[in-house]
């Protein structure tokens, strides 16, 4: 039996290039794979406020399509992407106002959010269904990463609790998985427990200590649980889950890559996005996890982009009222967002894995909570699906599932069924409205 050859030379690009990665030679042969194939991996990439569709959607379908202005940055990887038009997400339609919260909470769940500021109920997200099945194979079952923690004050969107606007990964109906916005935390998550300066003996002792503390805390938690009423028990369950997951991780083999260095947490948006992109590549490349969600902003983000010459708020621009000046600003912002995706894909494509690349063994889903920012539509969603995930998709095409524009296209939940299948997770239904895996992808 031979393990897959994960690349040893892993570097953070740009100003994050502070890392050198001494390898744990002795561990290389221990990586626990039964065959030569590299595992399938998933990144879900969220962007806020929809897209200026007129400059996004290619006019042709099939493999002979021209990249539109917003999609232009994808030219270097055009043959490795699918542009997907015409899918709908009707469960994401809120009760009354609240399209950003509804669209973001439904982004990977295809579930309808309970409209409340305190009674938070939704559904499990697609990435978590996958993580539940394949997460055991890696140290970290899944990672949740983002750029914005959350505005410091105020309500989120029209009577929907902020949890709906800030999280796309949901472990269960009531458990949003908060994301980290710190590059330092992401780095520590990936490389935690891989101290190249510690002896084997020392590492074993550290693990014993951590396990002992966790045992102690679990006892306390169990004793406390017996004294709690219904609601408080639900609260404490989340804590117990945290104990369980960390204990599991401690019992998994160490990572095949090691690293030294320290990615700095920067306030500069461009730099921060690039470092996060680099860290995501690193996490997949080192097989620390196989499932990542990434939020480029929170629902309805009103961030301004002065470095692009778009100094108004993104959300305000997105209520464009068909004003050409707003269209221009949106196109600028949207194009920048696609550039970030393109950077990620190119980095993944540079990682050789056997006869292929990391990108070919992965799928990257890129979309927003709504279609057009002014109309707040939950149909014809802007979607890029990149990477062919071991040949699950025939890339280099534009597919339009809503050729008859008067009727909603198929539910995006069907795409999620196909994406799960590409990860080896076969389900017959998902979310509130799936009808079966999506055709035309292969």
């Amino acid at each position, binding site marked *: 039996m031979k393990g897959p050859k994960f690349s040893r030379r892993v570097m953070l690009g740009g100003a994050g290039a502070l890392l050198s990665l001494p390898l744990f030679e002795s561990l290389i042969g221990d990586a626990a794979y039964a065959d030569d194939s590299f595992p399938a991996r998933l990144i879900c990439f969220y962007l806020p406020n929809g897209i200026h569709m007129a400059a996004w959607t290619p006019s042709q379908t099939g493999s002979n399509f021209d990249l539109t202005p917003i999609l232009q940055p994808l030219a270097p990887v055009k043959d490795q992407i699918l542009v997907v038009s015409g899918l709908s997400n009707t469960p994401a339609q809120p009760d009354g106002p609240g399209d950003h919260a509804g669209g973001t909470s439904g982004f990977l769940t295809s579930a309808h959010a309970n409209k409340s500021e*305190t009674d938070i109920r939704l559904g499990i997200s697609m990435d978590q269904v996958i993580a539940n099945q394949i997460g055991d194979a890696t140290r970290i079952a899944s990672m949740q990463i983002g750029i914005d923690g959350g505005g410091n004050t105020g309500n989120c969107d029209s009577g929907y609790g902020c949890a709906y606007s800030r999280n796309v990964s949901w472990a269960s109906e009531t458990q949003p998985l908060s994301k980290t916005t710190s590059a330092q935390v992401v780095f520590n998550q990936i490389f935690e427990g891989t101290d190249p300066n510690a002896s084997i003996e020392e590492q074993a002792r550290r693990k014993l200590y951590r396990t002992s503390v966790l045992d102690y805390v679990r006892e306390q938690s169990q004793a406390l649980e017996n004294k709690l009423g219904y609601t408080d028990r639900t609260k404490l369950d989340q804590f117990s889950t945290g104990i369980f997951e960390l204990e599991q991780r401690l019992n998994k083999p160490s990572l095949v890559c090691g690293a030294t260095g320290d990615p700095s947490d920067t306030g500069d948006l461009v730099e921060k996005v690039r470092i996060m992109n680099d860290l995501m590549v690193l996490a997949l490349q080192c097989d620390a996890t196989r499932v990542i969600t990434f939020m480029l902003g929170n629902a309805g983000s009103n961030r301004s982009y002065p470095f692009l010459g778009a100094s108004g708020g993104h959300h305000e621009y997105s209520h464009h009222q068909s004003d050409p000046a707003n269209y221009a600003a949106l196109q600028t912002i949207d194009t920048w967002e696609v550039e970030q995706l393109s950077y990620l894909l190119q980095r993944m494509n540079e990682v050789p894995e056997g006869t292929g690349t990391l990108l070919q063994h992965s799928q990257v889903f890129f979309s927003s909570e709504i279609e057009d920012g002014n109309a707040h539509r939950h149909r014809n969603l802007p979607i890029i699906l990149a990477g062919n995930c071991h040949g699950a998709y025939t890339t280099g095409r534009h597919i339009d599932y809503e050729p008859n524009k008067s009727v909603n296209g198929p539910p995006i939940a069907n795409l999620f069924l196909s994406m799960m299948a590409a990860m080896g997770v076969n389900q017959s239904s998902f979310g509130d409205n799936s009808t079966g895996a999506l055709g035309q992808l292969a």
Partner: protein
Amino acid sequence: MDGNAWLRLLPLVALLGCDGVIGSSDGEGPFAGPGGGDVGAVGADVMHRLNQTEYRNTTRDLLGTQLDPAANFPADDVSFGFDNISQVLSVSPLLFELYEQAAQELAGEVLNTGIRDSIVFCDPSLASCRSDVFRELASRAWRRPASEEEVTRLQSLFDVALNEGEGVEEGLELAIRGVLLSPHFIYRPELDDDPLSAQPRLLNDYELASRLSYFLWSSMPDQTLFEAAANGSLGDETELRAQVDRMLNDPKAQALVDNFAGQWLRIRSLEDHVPDYASFPQWDGALRDAMGQEAKLFFGEFLRGNVSMDELLLTDFTFLNDRLAEHYGLPFDLGSQLERVDLDANDPRFGLLTLGSLLTVTSTPIRTSPVKRGVWILEQLLCSEPPPPPPGVEGLPEGDMSSGSLRDRLELHRADPTCASCHNLMDPLGLGLENYDAIGSFRTEDDGFPVDASGQLIDGQGFTNAREMAALIQEDQRFEHCIVEKLFTYALGRPVASTEEPFIEAIAEESAQNGSELPELIKLIVTSEPFRTRRGTLEGSP
């Protein structure tokens, strides 16, 4: 119609049109017990997880640490305008992992720095000393006396290191990690004798001490408060009021400014707000900091009881430094430190509504937003959320727009009966502040248009400028009630239950009779039945 009558009509217009503003609430009632509960019944409580700020302050006060591991915790979810609402404070696996790392870092710091002696105050090679150390630390960390069984269990955690052949230090470190990762530290459990009971009960003294300290300090009780809990004196209302006075005089009461006012008055939002450089080249970090400090110092005067809340909207003072005075166009000779200055009746600055910070964060990066400003006043000062806009409704276009044309556009918009139903509530309030631009400078003209800040409230009362408008809002009955509601929500970490309206009414009334001073209002809340009572929830109820 009086001010309250139309409020009751709001649900009827709930689906009519508005402007594309995010950030308004649906105005639905807070959670009530099953079937709504009895009027006058206290609301249900949920076990509270320390939020990021509370964790930071608690580790600071417990250990004396300079470390701030909470800085990397994921953002807490916000509900009802605050980030301390128990029901939405959850623990994800990521947060748990960060708690575990934090416990390691903090324990390491305790043992290897000058703060060691305050925690390990005897010779830890002696078992009796270790018992004392563990008992003391756990009792403070868990904010109630640790049982002997719990102390013994910490001792056995200590023994894990000895059994590994390591020394006392390693053992101490393990025990400290255990204390800091315990659910008794991370949460604030209030335990009922019968966990399945939803019968309200009086809090015990330690639980009450914690509620008090997390309300006033966003942190754990200090030694004095623990002692008061230990000798049972908090059950005495006079003693409880005396504790509030003592605690408000402590520098830690700044937490009420940073966290309560910081969110209620949106001072915290300044950090995230970036005015357009091309439109406002004079904006920079120094101006932003001065505005933030002005708002905090301004609120601090009310918190110290120097000024009645009756004057929140019409004061004759503010705090300025040279930079802010110049920005406001006021002729004071000041240095770089902010100082309290007296304003006269002709000055365009006269209280909360003219604070630069508030005027700035309720604007877009490019221009003022009368709608956002109006919504803020309705939601935060009158607790009368306008219904949110229906889906698909279009906002105003961006780009160059003077206040003259802005008013015209809003007028047009309000001519549409669908929009008018709620814009007649919001727009006059926001347009009344049009003499203040998107970074709070005073102006009489905008792009050549003279600013018209006159208007009429929905009840027909007219005003010619912002000061007159402020006077009308201040006299609105809902204003005093709303302040109580906001403070109560923050104090309890949960929204006001519909059954609790009588408590709010009574507190508002008594506060008004006593001169509406904030310290007194805080005491009325602290001594109220909901604050001193706990009620659990039945299975299946929210």
